[in-house]
C-alpha cells in the first residue's frame, strides 16, 4: 500500500510537469490551430542554455530565469519568422515546419553542447520526505515542481481572466476577423501566445531536467506525453490539459514502477488512439463534433 501511495505521489508530481507542457501545446493550438512539435526541442535547448550558464558559474536561479526568457524569445521569433507564413496554408505544411524546428534544435544542441549525458543540478534535495516517520519517495524537489507549475498556471489564469491583454488574446484566438475589427492587434497576440508557450515549455523542460541527466533527445518522450495529455483534455481546454497531464503522469509512473518501463510510450500511444477513436473531443467534450 505504501508503495502504491508513493507511486501515486510521484505520478502526480510528474503529471504536473506533463500538464505544464500540455498547457503550452494548448496555448498554441487555441491561438493558431497548430500543434507545435518543436516545443520539446525548444525547451530542451533553453535547458541547455541554463546548464551552460550554471557550468560557467552563474547563479542557479539567474540561469533558470535566463532559460525562461530564452524560451519566451525563441517562441516569439519562431512564430514571427516561420510560422506566420504557413498559418493559413494547408495544415500539413505547418506540421512539417514545426517538425523542422524540432530536428533543428535537437541537432543544434548536439553541436553546441555535445551529445553526451550531463547531469543537471537539482534546485532542492532529492532525498525522500518522511513526515511522521513514514518514508516517502516524494522529494522536496517534487514539491518544488508542483509549486512552480501551480504558480505558473495561476499566473496564466490571472492573465486570461482578469487583464485586458488576456481578453484580447482570447478574442484573437476565438475569431481573428472580429477581433481585428474591434481593434485587437491579432498578429501581436498570436506572437505573444507562442512566446508564452515557449516560456511555459521552457519551465517544463527545466523541471524535467532538475536533478536528472540531460542529453539533446531527453525531451523526445515529453512531446509525446504532452501531446497525448493535451488531446485527452480536448486540445483547447486548460483544465483539460492539467487533468490529461495527471492521467499520463500516473499511467507512466505505475507502468514504470510495476513492470514495463520500456513499453510506457506504447501504452501512451494506446491511450491516445483510444481517446481519438472514442472521444475525439477529449474527456470533457460536449457533443460538438470535431474533425480529428
Amino acid at each position, binding site marked *: 500500500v505504501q508503495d502504491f501511495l508513493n507511486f501515486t505521489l510521484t505520478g502526480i508530481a510528474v503529471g504536473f510537469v506533463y500538464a505544464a507542457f500540455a498547457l503550452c501545446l494548448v496555448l498554441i493550438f487555441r491561438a493558431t490551430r497548430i500543434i507545435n512539435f518543436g516545443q520539446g526541442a525548444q525547451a530542451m535547448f533553453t535547458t541547455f542554455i541554463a546548464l551552460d550558464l550554471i557550468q560557467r558559474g552563474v547563479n542557479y536561479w539567474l540561469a533558470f530565469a535566463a532559460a525562461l526568457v530564452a524560451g519566451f524569445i525563441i517562441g516569439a521569433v519562431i512564430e514571427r519568422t516561420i510560422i506566420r507564413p504557413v498559418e493559413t496554408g494547408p495544415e500539413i505544411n*505547418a506540421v512539417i515546419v514545426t517538425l523542422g524546428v524540432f530536428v533543428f534544435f535537437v541537432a543544434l544542441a548536439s553541436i553546441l553542447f555535445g551529445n553526451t549525458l550531463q547531469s543537471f543540478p537539482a534546485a532542492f534535495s532529492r532525498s525522500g520526505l518522511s513526515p511522521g516517520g513514514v518514508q516517502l519517495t516524494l522529494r522536496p524537489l517534487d514539491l518544488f515542481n508542483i509549486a512552480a507549475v501551480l504558480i505558473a498556471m495561476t499566473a496564466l489564469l490571472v492573465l486570461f481572466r482578469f487583464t485586458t491583454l488576456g481578453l484580447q488574446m482570447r478574442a484573437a484566438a476565438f475569431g481573428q476577423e472580429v477581433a481585428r475589427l474591434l481593434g485587437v492587434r491579432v498578429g501581436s497576440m498570436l506572437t505573444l501566445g507562442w512566446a508564452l508557450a515557449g516560456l511555459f515549455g521552457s519551465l517544463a523542460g527545466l523541471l524535467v531536467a532538475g536533478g536528472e541527466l540531460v542529453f539533446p533527445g531527453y525531451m523526445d518522450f515529453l512531446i509525446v506525453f504532452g501531446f497525448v495529455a493535451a488531446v485527452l483534455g480536448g486540445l483547447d481546454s486548460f483544465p483539460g490539459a492539467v487533468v490529461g497531464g495527471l492521467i499520463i503522469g500516473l499511467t507512466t509512473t505505475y507502468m514504470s514502477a510495476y513492470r514495463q518501463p520500456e513499453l510506457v510510450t506504447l501504452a501512451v500511444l494506446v491511450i491516445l488512439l483510444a481517446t481519438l477513436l472514442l472521444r475525439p473531443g477529449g474527456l470533457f467534450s460536449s457533443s460538438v463534433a470535431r474533425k480529428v
Partner: protein
Amino acid sequence: VTTPSGPDPRQPEPTPADDGSSSGGVTTTPEVTGAPGPGAPAPGAEPRPFLQKTLVRHGLLHAGALLGIVLLLEAISPFRNAQLAQMAYFVPAVAGLTVLTGINGQISLGHGALMMVGAYTTAYTLENAEGTPFVVVLLLAILTTTIVGAVVGVAAARLHGPYLAGATLALAVGLPGIALKFEDALGGEQGLRVSPPRPTDGFESFYANIFGDLSNQKFIALVGWALAIAVLFLLSNLITSRVGRDWRAVRDDEVAAQLAGINIGRSRVLAFTVSAACAGVAGCMLAAVTRLAAPGSFTIVLSISLLAAIVIGGLGSLVGAILGSAMLVFLPQVVTDFGAGQGLNSSQAANIAPLVYGIVLVVVMLVAPFGLVGTIRRKYLERKARKMLEAFAAAQSQQQG
C-alpha cells in the same frame, strides 16, 4: 504488394484485391481530381498503341534504369558502391512515404518505426532459421510490416494533420522500446547481427561472364536496387491507375470523393498499407546492407529525415523520392566532412546533417511548398498553359481579322 492495374478504367484489367471486393458502385471519375494523371485517357479515346501504354512505358523505363545501375556499379569505386547500396534502401521507404503523403495526404512519422519492423523481422528470421532463402526472408519482412501498417492505417484513416502526426510520432518514439523490452529475442540495445544474402554460384558465374568479379558489396547493392526499382515500378503504375486517382480524390476533397462513390476509409487504409509494405522492403534491405538491426538506427530522426527527403523532392513525386534519397546518403558525408574540417569532433559533425534537414524542412515549406521537382513541374505547366492561351488568343484574333 498489389497488382498494378492498367491506366484505362474501361478495360477489365485486374484491379488490386482490396478494391475488387467493392460494390461496383466505385466508378472512376477522373474529373474529381481536377488533374488526372498523365496516363489517363480522355473518355472515348481509341486504345493506345502498344508502346504508349503506361504499363509498357513504365516497364521499359525501369528495366533501362536497372541496367544503368548495373553499369554504374561497375564503373565506380567500392566506397561509392556502398553509398549506392545505402541509397537503395532509402528509395523504397521515401517512395512509399511520398505516395502516402503527397498522393493521399496522410503524414506519417512512423515510417522509421515501420522500417524497424522490416529490419527486425529480417534479422530475427535469419538468426533463428539460418539458411532461409533471402526471398522468403524478404517476403516475411514485407508481410509483417504490411500487417503492422494495416493496423496503424486503420487508426490513421480516422485522423488527419496534426493528430495523425502526433499518433505516428508516438509510434516512432515508442516502438524501439519493444526491442529493449524483449532483450533475449531482439538483442536489446545491441540489436541483432544480420548475415547478408550471398549470390548463388550460378548467378555469380553468370555475372562474372558479362561484367567481371561480383563482390559481396556489389551484390547487395544490386539486390537493393532491383527491389527499389521494382517498388518504383509498382508505385508508378499504382498512382496512375484508378487506385491512385481515388487516393488523390480523397486527398483533395473528402466530400466530393465520397459523392463520387469512393470509400474514403478503405482508400486511406489501402494507401497506408501499401506505403508500409514499401517501408518493409526498405527495412529488410537496411538490415542486409548495414548487417545490423538495432534500435539506435530507428530513432525519430530517421522518420524526420525521410520526411525531409520527400519534402525536398516534392510531395508525391517518385523522381523527387529518388533525389531525396540521394540527399539522405550524400549530404551527411559532405557536411560531416565540412564540420570535421571546421574543428568539430565526430559526434558534433554527425549532427550537422539533421541540422540541415531541419532547415530544409522549414525553408522548402516557406519558399517552395511543392518541392524541387514539384516547383519545376509547376513552372513548366504554367508556361505551357500560357503558351496555349497565347496561341488561342492569336487564333481568335486571326479569325476576327
